[in-house]
């Protein structure tokens, strides 16, 4: 299975995101990609497509029969192409909002708000990148692969899943020149104990300047530990229940360890991407 996120050819600016837009997008397609996930492709106004990998949109989901989702639902950008006016999301049907998304048919319109939040950074000295993720976290990291290729970085993607065939975005990562390692629960290769030596071997060869991760607290703790031990920085995309998505309501705070102190940060505004070392 090959999911092809399309990314702005010109790299997005780093630093603070530009203004965001509340806009009406038109559904191009909305198709199941495996038992659990669906791919939503939208025709969106170009002005909303000045995106960075790691940013997200807030979608005003339509009501499915008998349910009434009220707040918007946050979704990571899976793909974007400002020239073609395309915006993609990969989502898992979890509750009322995503059930509503699943009812969308080509031609329907969907109110979107974004791009929101701070995306991943990729400083010059991060030449050898290692991405370690699981489940829908792989979707959130997908846009990074093309960005890495566009910037000439070397990428290793460790894709974790329950079963090998459920590992998402594997071909996509390969298409963008990443080395892909699939680990899974069935043969035990996805446990932190199994992953640690695998990653440490790469570190020893000088093949890891930075980590990216998303979607698993066990993986986070492993990478925090390895990062501390070996002095390797990295970033994580995090989730939290949201209301506004813009920074106004303070619904989406999470605690972060900054030096000795624990501080609260808004996932929607200061995040959703944070330094791995500070995540809790």
């Amino acid at each position, binding site marked *: 299975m090959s999911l092809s996120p399309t990314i702005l050819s010109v790299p997005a600016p780093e630093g603070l995101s530009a*203004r*965001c*837009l*509340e806009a009406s997008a038109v559904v191009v397609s909305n198709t199941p990609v495996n038992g659990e996930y669906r791919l939503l492709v939208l025709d969106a106004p170009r002005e909303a497509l000045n995106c960075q990998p790691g940013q997200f949109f807030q979608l*005003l989901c339509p009501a499915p029969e008998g349910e*009434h*989702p*009220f*707040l*918007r639902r946050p979704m990571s950008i899976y793909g974007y192409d400002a020239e073609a006016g395309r915006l993609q999301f990969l989502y898992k049907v979890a509750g*009322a*909002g995503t059930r509503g998304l699943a009812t969308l048919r080509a031609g329907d319109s969907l*109110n979107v*708000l974004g791009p929101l939040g701070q995306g991943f950074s990729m400083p010059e000295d991060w030449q050898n990148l290692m991405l370690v993720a699981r489940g829908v976290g792989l979707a959130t990291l997908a846009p990074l692969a093309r960005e890495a290729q566009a910037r000439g970085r070397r990428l290793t993607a460790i894709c974790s899943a329950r079963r090998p065939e459920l590992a998402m975005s594997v071909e996509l990562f390969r298409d963008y020149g990443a080395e892909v390692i699939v680990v899974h629960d069935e043969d035990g290769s996805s446990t932190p104990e199994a992953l640690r030596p695998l990653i440490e071997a790469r570190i020893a060869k000088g093949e890891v300047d930075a980590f990216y991760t998303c979607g698993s607290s066990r993986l986070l703790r492993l990478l925090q530990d390895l990062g501390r031990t070996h002095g390797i920085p990295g970033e994580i995309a995090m989730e*939290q*229940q*949201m*209301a*506004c*998505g*813009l*920074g*106004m*309501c*303070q*619904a*989406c*705070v*999470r605690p972060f360890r900054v030096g000795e102190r624990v501080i*609260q940060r808004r996932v929607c*505004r200061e995040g959703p991407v944070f330094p791995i070392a500070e995540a809790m």
Partner: protein
Amino acid sequence: MKDLMTPDLSAQVGALRLANPIMPASGTFSEDLSDVFDLDILGAHVLKTIMHGKRDGNPTPRVCDLQGGMLNAIGIPSKGIEDFRERMLPYWARYGAPLVVSISAHSVDEFARLCAEVSLPGVAAIEANISCPNIEANGKAFAMRPETTHDVVTRLRAETDLPLWAKLTPNTGEPVEVALAAEAAGADALVVANTALGMSIDITTRRPKLGNVMGGMSGPAIKPIALRMTYQTAQACSIPVIGCGGIATLDDVLEFLIAGAAAVQVGTATFQSPTVMARLVAELSGWMQAQGVTALSQIIGTVEAPAEGLHE
């Protein structure tokens, strides 16, 4: 040429004149919204409630979805009074719209001290959040009883010369008595109202959906309650009432004005559509022009007696 005239949208809230009657509700607005539209088109800027010291606020999850609204138990995370003086006040000085500072506290003394401290140049009015249901145990608040309302508003009044707005709660059986107590104690306006105390349980985990167990309900679901209180308090009091609760459309704005509100606050609707307040200002202007309504005074408090029966 009545229908080509530009209507006058200005709203009078006591001594304060607003360019238009649309302003945000406390806690649902911040400088971050300037990413979406130019905040100077608003009638006023109402900030998230601040408390004196630094506070974390409530545990997560802090919000949940409801049919026609949401619950929140944000609490009042606060960076404290220094942050307000040194960072927020200078930031908001860039705008022409009047700045309304919402304050709260656990005791009358603390409330009064904070009121004095925020009475600074650049602040146009103080909104006393005497109704936030999350502050004290089980959601009790000053504005649940006329006596406690009178006490706290009297003390606040003594501490500031700025216009003082008292924000009431729907979680009371005595809204009119509370409103009259606030007026008697010297409030310049009433904000009607804050959230209604509610709860929601995830039946799969059997856990409350909010980390704080209970929280405040907002959005269209509470509109009839807020409108009823707006009507009741506007009928009973002579100080202006600012309607708040579930306002999302032009019809909602008109409904509150007709019920007696001098202006309105928009909260949760901004979460569904961050551009909503900008749209409401434009739509109100368009509607007034189309209807030949030249000033808000032709709308405010114009509610009629019910029709008798239902005969064609």
